């Protein structure tokens, strides 16, 4: 941030310097041409045309060639300083030592301030001093056609005072150039600082606006969440009411159908035909099946609403008690069940019992037609999670229909082959999902199936 602002500031100073240079260069063009033309006019006094054209021409050539050849350098400005000195010397010469022509140096000196660089005074001062010393010496040595001054009293003392005063003027002009530059720099830096502060202020305002917007959004989001939750609660209540009426209203007529069929069967046992006897049985069986479907569906939907209570659970204990219940129940013969090591788990014991009961009774059901049915139960560790499995060597299933395996009311076998409602595995999946676990299976027709589930530790 600081680096960036300082580079911006430097760029600003550079821009300003370029601007000063451009404007000064522009003005200088007129002055140089004016100086050259001045030389031409002065040539008319003492017939110094050669000097006016040659020296003035060399000056212009020196200035413009440097400027063209080295456009990025400031060298041409130093050349300009020297050129101003040379023009002064030229005019003095052209006017045969007319003293007032010495002031031309001061015009040049003042002109150079425009570049705001005190060093430019140096070449001018050097040229002036060298010229004065050389020409003064030559003139007083008696060399002909050398014009430095028409004054009679140009002693060394006068010369020193003359040179000193000239240097003072150069110094003052240099000082001014220096001051100008310093002032401009300060001014630019300040305006950039102000700009930066304004930018900061603007950004702060933007940030505050954005924050206010976010706050508003959050508030509206909260309202939305509240509204949605209320809606969901309403829907959930409606669903509960629906389940309740399903339970009552659908089960009652089924009970009546089943009950009266049974009554007829019992009272007319000896009078009805064999076909009617079978038909009545079919009626009763289907009514009972529908009753189971409704009950299972209600269990399934109730589970969706139930909260789970997680505790440390002894899985081996649950599995033993499930198998005991199966043996005591109306199930047919229970095949050999091999129970390997079963790791404890953190889960809801009541729901987990349901999972084991469904998986084990499935294994019993689908393997009972085998000559030597075998069921294996155990735990294995996979990816840091305990994975439980129930494996049987029964009817198995086609992996092509895997998608339907855990879906509600979806079955891969006919009711006449294997009884059931198609809710058991859906229930298992729902319970395991509620525990943030995973359930999957693999199987092959007539080779058996293995059901796995894993629970987070």
């Amino acid at each position, binding site marked *: 941030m600081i680096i960036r602002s300082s580079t911006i500031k430097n760029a600003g100073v550079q821009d300003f310097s370029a601007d000063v240079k451009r404007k000064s260069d522009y003005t200088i063009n007129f002055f140089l041409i004016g100086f050259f033309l001045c030389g031409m006019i002065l040539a008319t006094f003492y017939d110094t045309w050669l000097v006016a054209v040659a020296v003035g021409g060399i000056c212009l050539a020196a200035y413009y060639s440097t400027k063209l050849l080295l456009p990025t350098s400031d060298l041409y400005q130093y050349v300009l300083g020297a050129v101003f000195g040379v023009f002064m010397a030229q005019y003095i010469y052209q006017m045969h030592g007319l003293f007032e022509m010495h002031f031309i140096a001061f015009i040049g000196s003042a002109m150079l301030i425009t570049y705001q660089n005190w060093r430019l005074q140096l070449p001018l001062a050097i040229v002036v001093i060298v010229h004065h010393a050389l020409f003064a010496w030559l003139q007083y040595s008696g060399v002909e056609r050398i014009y430095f001054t028409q004054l009679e009293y140009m002693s060394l003392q006068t010369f020193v005072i003359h040179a000193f005063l000239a240097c003072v003027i150069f110094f003052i002009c240099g000082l001014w150039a220096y001051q100008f530059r310093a002032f401009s720099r300060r001014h630019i830096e300040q305006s950039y600082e102000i700009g930066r502060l304004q930018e900061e202020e603007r950004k702060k305002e933007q940030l505050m606006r954005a924050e206010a917007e976010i706050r508003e959004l959050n508030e509206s989001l909260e309202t939305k969440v509240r509204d949605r939750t209320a809606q969901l609660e309403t829907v959930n209540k409606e669903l509960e009411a629906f389940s309740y009426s399903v*339970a009552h209203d659908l089960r*009652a007529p089924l*009970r009546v159908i*089943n009950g009266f069929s049974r009554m007829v069967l019992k009272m007319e046992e000896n009078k009805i035909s064999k076909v009617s006897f079978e038909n009545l049985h079919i009626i009763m069986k289907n009514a*009972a099946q529908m009753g189971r479907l*409704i009950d299972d569906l209600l269990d399934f939907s109730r589970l969706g609403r139930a909260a789970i209570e997680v505790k440390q659970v002894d899985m081996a204990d649950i599995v033993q008690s499930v198998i005991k219940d199966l043996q005591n129940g109306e199930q047919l013969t229970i095949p050999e069940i091999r129970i390997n090591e079963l790791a404890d788990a953190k889960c809801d014991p009541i729901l987990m019992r349901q999972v084991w009961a469904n998986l084990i009774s499935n294994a019993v059901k689908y393997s009972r037609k085998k000559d030597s049915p075998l069921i294996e139960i155990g735990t294995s560790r996979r990816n840091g999670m305990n994975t439980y499995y129930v494996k049987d060597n029964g009817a198995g299933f086609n992996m092509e229909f895997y998608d339907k395996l855990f879906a509600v009311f979806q079955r891969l076998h006919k009711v006449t082959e294997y009884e059931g409602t198609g809710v058991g595995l859906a229930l298992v999946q729902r319970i395991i999902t509620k525990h943030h676990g995973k359930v999957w299976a693999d199987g092959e027709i007539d080779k058996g199936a293995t059901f796995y589930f894993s629970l987070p530790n």
Partner: protein
Amino acid sequence: MDKDQVDILLVEDNPYEARLTLMSLEEQNISSNIHHVDDGAEALDFIFAKGNYADRNPENTPRMILLDLNMPKIGGLEVLRRIKADERTKSIPIVILSSSREDSDLVTSYMLGVNSYVVKPVEFDTFTKAISDIGSYWMMLNESTVLFLLAKSKMHKA
């Protein structure tokens, strides 16, 4: 039927279910004085001798009530609450016969002081078993009739 001498009051709005229950009770040889009413309002009228039953003697409360939960006008839970709230009737044993397996109904019923809660199963065999349990319960209540019923039952089986 003598309205004053009722042993079992059956409160059930579905006539077929009522008939089924009555037949099952009969099958269990419990055919003592049973009265059937169609809804909760009528049940309360009967018990507290009001409305159509104003001529009944309210002292002669039924000895057991079989109560359905889901009924029009006044539901089973409300009937249960009113009976258990009244000093004269709160000791009558009440068995809820419900189609609902909702836990909330079960909990509410027990909180209101129900004596037994039976979920009516779809399968008739299970249903008759439930009714037979009620029968045993009834026999325990009514020891004086036990011997008679047992004798009758033996005779029937023979």
